[in-house]
């Protein structure tokens, strides 16, 4: 296995490591991100990624080393400090939550910059790498594990990912409850505050472990976008996490290939890809997507117009006159426009209405449906007059709207409620 891998083309090896590290980082972030999105704390990742800067500098000044563990501990301390300060400023200082976040992270970031200039200006702390990461060169910095060179990033992100998964599995129901209803969680004896800070610590650790390699911008994107995308696609937390993890991996793969193809920054491209995933979900998500909602509304409108047409043809027949409507007249009568045309075309296609010459005639199937609609309409009119005391000349409008939603079962219940289920308030027969 190892021999096979090392015998591969170096470019393929690099691609493998970039995608693996990217996918692991993204997944670690995306899992926690689901909770952040649900708890409306999405911007915390952004705040943390700015605020760890003074932690890095202080750790360096105190120990004089740029080693991974020193940096990790310094940044982690700064991250936890940020979370605590934001919470405390909001609760104890009475500052609105978003403003307290803004105050804390900008102040810490500014402090970090000044500290760098003061104490560490000799150190080459490449700001470019902090923000956009060195994912492209991830396999240049390796450690030897079991006689095999693996990127150092794997050693930092691997355990963090494992820890995240472990904590989520261990505290599944506590985190679930405290995310959706922290009041109930507290009332049931779970320490909602403890889980808040547990989550904060995990986010801080993940942010710190990730961003040396992939850059803070990818971390911020991955903490929010996969969770928010999954939230548009499902209502179950378990499924939401699965989808978010899948999106995280997919954006690592697609982002890498897009970056290679376009010859641009990899981490940035991964973040752009996950942003596009979100955009796609906003438009196309089956239940919560904008376009799907639009289509649903359109279908509903067409159905209403269709049923209005059927009702009209039925009433014409009921009058017992010879006159029938032509196509143009019918469309005119239900408000013209593309909706009316679509509705009539639908009726003809379904075989509810047929053409007799250039006039429209109900088929048996259409008549049956129309009977149900008119029955619903008149029953509702009777109900409104009898139980709400509306005058008979005020009940047609509400019945026009309600008839489309009154199914057979509801019709029976309404019929049982009215004294006379044979005649409507206008003296017309209620068909059955």
């Amino acid at each position, binding site marked *: 296995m190892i021999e096979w891998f090392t015998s591969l083309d170096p470019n393929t090896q690099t691609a493998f490591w970039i995608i693996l590290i990217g996918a692991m980082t993204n997944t670690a972030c995306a899992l926690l991100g689901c909770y952040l999105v649900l708890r409306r704390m999405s911007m915390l990742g952004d705040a943390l990624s700015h605020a760890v800067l003074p932690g890095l500098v202080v750790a360096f000044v105190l120990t004089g080393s740029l080693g991974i563990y020193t940096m990790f501990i310094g940044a982690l301390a700064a991250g936890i400090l940020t979370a605590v300060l934001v919470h405390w400023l909001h609760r104890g*200082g009475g500052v*609105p939550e*978003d403003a307290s976040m803004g105050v804390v992270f900008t102040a810490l970031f500014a402090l970090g*910059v000044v500290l760098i*200039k003061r104490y560490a200006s000799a150190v080459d702390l490449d*700001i470019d790498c902090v923000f956009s990461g060195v994912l492209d060169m991830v396999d240049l910095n390796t450690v030897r594990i079991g006689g095999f060179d693996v990127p150092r990033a794997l050693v930092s992100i691997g355990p963090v990912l494992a820890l995240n998964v472990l904590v989520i599995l261990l505290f599944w129901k506590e985190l679930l409850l405290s995310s959706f209803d922290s009041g109930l969680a507290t009332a049931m004896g779970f320490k909602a505050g403890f889980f808040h800070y547990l989550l904060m610590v995990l986010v801080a650790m993940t942010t710190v472990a990730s961003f040396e390699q992939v850059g803070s911008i990818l971390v911020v994107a991955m903490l*929010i*976008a996969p969770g928010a995308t999954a*939230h548009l696609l499902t209502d179950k937390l378990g499924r939401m996490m699965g989808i978010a993890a899948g999106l995280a991996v997919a954006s690592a793969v697609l982002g890498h290939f897009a970056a290679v193809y376009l010859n641009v920054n990899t981490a*940035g491209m991964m973040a752009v890809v996950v942003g596009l995933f979100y955009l796609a979900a906003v438009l196309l998500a089956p239940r919560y997507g904008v376009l799907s909602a639009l289509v649903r509304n359109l279908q509903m409108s067409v159905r209403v117009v269709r049923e209005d047409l059927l009702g009209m043809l039925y009433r014409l027949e009921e009058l017992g006159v010879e006159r029938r409507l032509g196509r143009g007249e019918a469309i005119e009568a239900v408000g013209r426009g593309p909706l009316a045309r679509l509705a009539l075309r639908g009726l003809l296609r379904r075989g509810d209405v047929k053409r007799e010459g250039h006039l429209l005639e109900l088929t048996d199937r259409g008549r049956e449906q129309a009977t149900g609609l008119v029955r619903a309409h008149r029953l509702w009119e009777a109900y409104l007059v009898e139980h709400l005391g509306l005058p008979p000349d005020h009940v047609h409008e509400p019945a026009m709207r309600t008839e489309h939603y009154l199914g057979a079962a509801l019709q029976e219940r309404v019929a049982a409620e009215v004294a006379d289920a044979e005649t409507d308030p206008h003296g017309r027969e209620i068909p059955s």
Partner: protein
Amino acid sequence: MTYPTLIVLVGTTLLGSTAGVLGSFAVLRRRALVGDLLSHAALPGLCLAFLVLGRSFSGMVAGALLAGLVAIGLMTLVCRFTRTKEDAALGIVLSTFFAAGVVLLSVIQKQTGGGSRAGLESYIFGQAAGMNLRDVWMIAGLSLASLVMVLLLYKELKLLSFDPGFARAQGWPTFLLDMTIMGTLCVVTVVGLPAVGILMVALLIIPAATARFWTERLSLMLVLAAMVGGMAGAVGTLLSAGLLQEWIGFDPLAFGDRTKNLPTGPLIVLCATAVFLASLLFAPRRGIVARAAAGLRLRAKTAREHLLRTLFELSEPHLPERPVVTLEQLLAQRAWSRAWARWLVWWGQRRGSVERAGGGVRLTEAGLGRATKLVRAHRLWELFLIRGANIAPDHVHRDADAIEHLLTPELVAELEAQLEPAAVAELPGGVPESPHEISPHNTSPHDEERPA
């Protein structure tokens, strides 16, 4: 002071005060982090303008402005039409736009052969020293324009900031007003970016949050925010130029020779933060010290009054005599420690309401007067709860115990008027009888609290 420094000084001061005024609306509207969104989202606009138009100043400003407006528009649309909440929408738009900027920047770097590698760094940190006269004129014009806008729309913006629902119900175009504010914020952020960098967001939030500690009036808040912002801009610039250190004769940051390298943006932010911290601690009503002191005062008053009422209740059978009450009797009534009770007595002595006599304590004349008033308020409230709110007599003590300290003489008079005169028994000072048995088991958990 050299001429370039003066230019930068004027520029940052104006920028700080304008950002303070506009940021106040963002903070009050709970949109404080929109500045964060703007300062990140401008990057792809800058890069695109650079790629298309080359190194043109006005082109890059236009690009950044356009990107910022698009970002705000997208965020608003997402919030309006999907189930994604405001914070997540903001974060997604921010990170996607910034990532797109990073991607475009890598394109630029390849085109220019790595020549503008410093691009991102100067974008993030800003370079106030690069400010020239034209920039200052632009900032001045912008400040004037936003001042005029705030003055013209003052009434509308005020209503929008404190009660957007009401503003909508009154028929104000809230969406348009919101967009006006956000658009102006966008312009200020973009203009401030070259000088202060990504920390522009801090100039929008910190002065506004600072001013909020000092006042409940929008007009005063705007003035204070402008002052804090302007002051931070000025002091930060002077510090970064090393001038302040020269004037005061020592270097508060202990920077030694490296003063000239100090980045202006972060220093401005730290100055604003210092004022913020001072306000957080010492602001008269909302500051932490003031609030802690008010809390302590209330707790002290509560404890004092509990001593008076307990003494009254123990003396009640013998009134108008003022019998001596032993410490043991007191402790049996209250969940007090011996030391705490002694201290309360000592304190009562100092205030002249309690005196020591024959191995115990008793109320003084003045103390009896105070205690009578207090017990009266307590029992009237109990009676009111029993009659008015139909609560069982053994359930009213706890509530009255908490509220007795807050009932003003006017409220007591009103309570009296509400209750039948017969209920107010003919005891000394018109104290009605306790509607429930007085026993230590009836005392409330409030007694267990004492000042830390």
